[in-house]
């Protein structure tokens, strides 16, 4: 890390605007917090008196829980607002909701929203720090960071690795954050999936778009699989899960093409037997539950850093 480095981000809106030093620093901070979750009394007073709002306009189990656990282990006061209980159902605009919440002086707002760019917009209307917990098909920066943390934990580095990302690259905000993050850290990213699910312009980012599973996975250090959805808004993206599983599913055979010490990852929830076969998901190379564990640590680090404690 460059000398004189300091963490300067008010909000965490995406990976795109984080430098390699920022990513390094966040992961290092997360690693220092990880041990708290292993203590018998899992609580430190770091964020005592801070008000943190989980504003979730989309269903989420693990991300919301992970942020809430992270906040509580730091002794912050947390409040959950989900779409069904919010004024959104009464027709209030996001900006009005934000201004009203802002008037109650929260320190941090964690936003999950189905529209890309919603956290970016929110950050312009509130005094609180905003953390993007997934926006539309844009980014999911805390997931990208926990994925990188997990890889660093096992590989002891984040550069010069071959990262294979398989599946729905077009709609996956996780894939977008991972692609930008791993590229930023100096690794190579290879993607493979059906043509209907590969967005345009990836090559311009420096991604290798593969024409076969073998090309993508061969000698990979990490094989990241993504949750698949059969259709979105009546757009015929895939003929069937059956065909997807046979052509694009990660089987034990596919996994064997990667390096023997390759990591198998998935951001969850998994469609077992579709994008990832159960034996691979539960196999020795799988670090899927490590990802979940590290998620809490990364989110503790993010809350700590945006609350001005860097």
């Amino acid at each position, binding site marked *: 890390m460059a000398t004189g480095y300091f963490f300067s981000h008010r909000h965490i809106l995406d990976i*795109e605007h984080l430098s390699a030093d920022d990513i390094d620093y966040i992961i290092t901070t997360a690693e220092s917090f990880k041990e708290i979750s292993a203590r018998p009394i899992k609580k430190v007073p770091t964020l005592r008196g801070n008000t943190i709002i989980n504003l979730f306009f989309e269903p989420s189990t693990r991300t919301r829980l992970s942020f809430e656990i992270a906040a509580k282990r730091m002794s912050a006061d947390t409040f959950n607002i989900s779409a069904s209980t919010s004024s959104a159902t009464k027709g209030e*605009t*996001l*900006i009005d909701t934000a201004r009203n919440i802002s008037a109650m002086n929260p320190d941090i707002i964690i936003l999950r*929203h189905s*529209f*890309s*760019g*919603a956290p*970016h*917009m929110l950050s312009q209307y509130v005094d609180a720090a905003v953390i993007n917990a997934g*926006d*539309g*098909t*844009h*980014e999911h920066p805390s997931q990208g960071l926990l994925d990188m943390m997990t890889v660093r934990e096992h590989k002891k580095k984040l550069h010069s690795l071959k990262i294979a990302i398989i599946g729905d690259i077009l709609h996956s*905000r996780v894939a*977008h954050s991972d692609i930008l993050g791993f590229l930023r850290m100096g690794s190579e990213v290879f993607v493979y999936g059906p043509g209907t699910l590969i*967005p*345009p*312009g*990836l090559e*311009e*980012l420096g991604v290798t778009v593969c024409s076969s599973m073998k090309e993508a996975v061969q000698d990979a250090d990490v094989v990241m699989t993504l949750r698949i959805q059969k259709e979105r*808004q009546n757009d015929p993206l895939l003929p069937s899960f059956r065909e997807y599983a046979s052509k694009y599913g990660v089987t034990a055979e596919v996994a064997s093409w990667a390096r023997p010490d390759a990591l198998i990852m998935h951001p969850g929830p998994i469609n077992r037997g579709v994008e990832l076969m159960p034996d691979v998901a539960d196999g020795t190379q799988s670090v899927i539950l490590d990802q979940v564990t590290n998620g809490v640590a990364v989110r503790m680090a993010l809350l700590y850093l945006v609350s001005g404690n860097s």
Partner: protein
Amino acid sequence: MPAPLLIKNGRIIDPANSFDDVRDLLIVDGRIADPATNIPSDVQEVDASGCWVIPGLIDMHVHLREPGEEYKEDILSGTKAAAAGGFTAVACMPNTKPVNDSRAVTSLILSQATHADARVYPVAAISKNSQGSALTEFGELRATGAVAVSDDGLPVRDSQLMRRALEYADDHDLLVISHSEEPSLSNGVMNEGIVSTRLGLKGIPNAAESIMVYRDIALAECLGKRIHIAHVSTAMSTDLIRSAKARGVRVTAETAPHYFTLTDEAVVGYNTNAKMNPPLRTEQDRQAIRQGLADGTFDAIATDHAPHSILEKEVEFDRAMNGIIGLETSLPLSLALVREGVLDENKLVELLSVNPARILGVEGGTLSAGARADVTIVNPDLQYTYTEEQVVSKSKNSPFLDVGATGRSSLQGRAVYTIMGGRITHRLA
């Protein structure tokens, strides 16, 4: 009748008469006077030294929002914005509430325009309620004052309906203006490409436009009818129109200042004032549009002036409505093409005045003696920053606000006087 005006020492650019020289221009009784006319004693003098005196600008594609959405714009505010931008006439699209698909709505628009600061030429809908199933009554609409028909905002999906519209419009000497987009491909919110991938926004591929542009050209070509393609945004469409013109197809086309000025990079930061339909495209498309303006593929520059309030624009990008206001920035953005060597001054006047008048079949586009005195006086050198306080339109949805203040070069060139029928409708303070 307004007092006679003597515009002194301006550079008169009048392509219709192949005239380009410094000369005085006299306006008497709302019309351009013969140069030999004696100067009346009550003449009001306007000093146009260092300025261009050109036929009044005509914007053949605007949305005035009246009736129905007067909180965004109305005919009086929209024509004030037009006058401020140097326009003496506009053609207004029919997607009002209710849709201008009837004599009643066309009459209402014309009656509201009686005291407006620009001439208003209504464009009526092609189909009833712009729903794309049954033709409107072209004959009655024409007789009431509509100059063209279009379902602008909603592409005509049904090719048979489009065919019938071209055939039937010809009987009534009405222009058909096509919003050419294939709806099944155009359900995104910005151009499809690296920027949409980075922002996680759903893209609209270039093919959405070119497929429909080609369908419309094919219909016009097979039927021998004329068609006008609105707001062209892509390189592919430009090529299709260029080659159709070379084959003698009766096709004319317009593009908008934002397509030759901005690219989809303007969307970065989820800027809803960079959201329009068709969307801002890539640099390659922008260059192709400029080439099309230079080589005559495009006949007109039209703004697609689309006022929206903050209710439609200060929202999540996906939920924001399409369109930007354009009447007040069209001239400076177009003048940049002259400074950058894409167009000469005469060609610019053709694109902004002569050709729109000819395509719409309306008076204007000339400074001939006896012509209606619709005149714009342009100071091509004046540099300024367009700020929210300056906006004349009721809505402020422009991506060109504060340019100059934000690092980009400021706007250069603007209308210092706009004169409609001899009456001064705008004078730069």
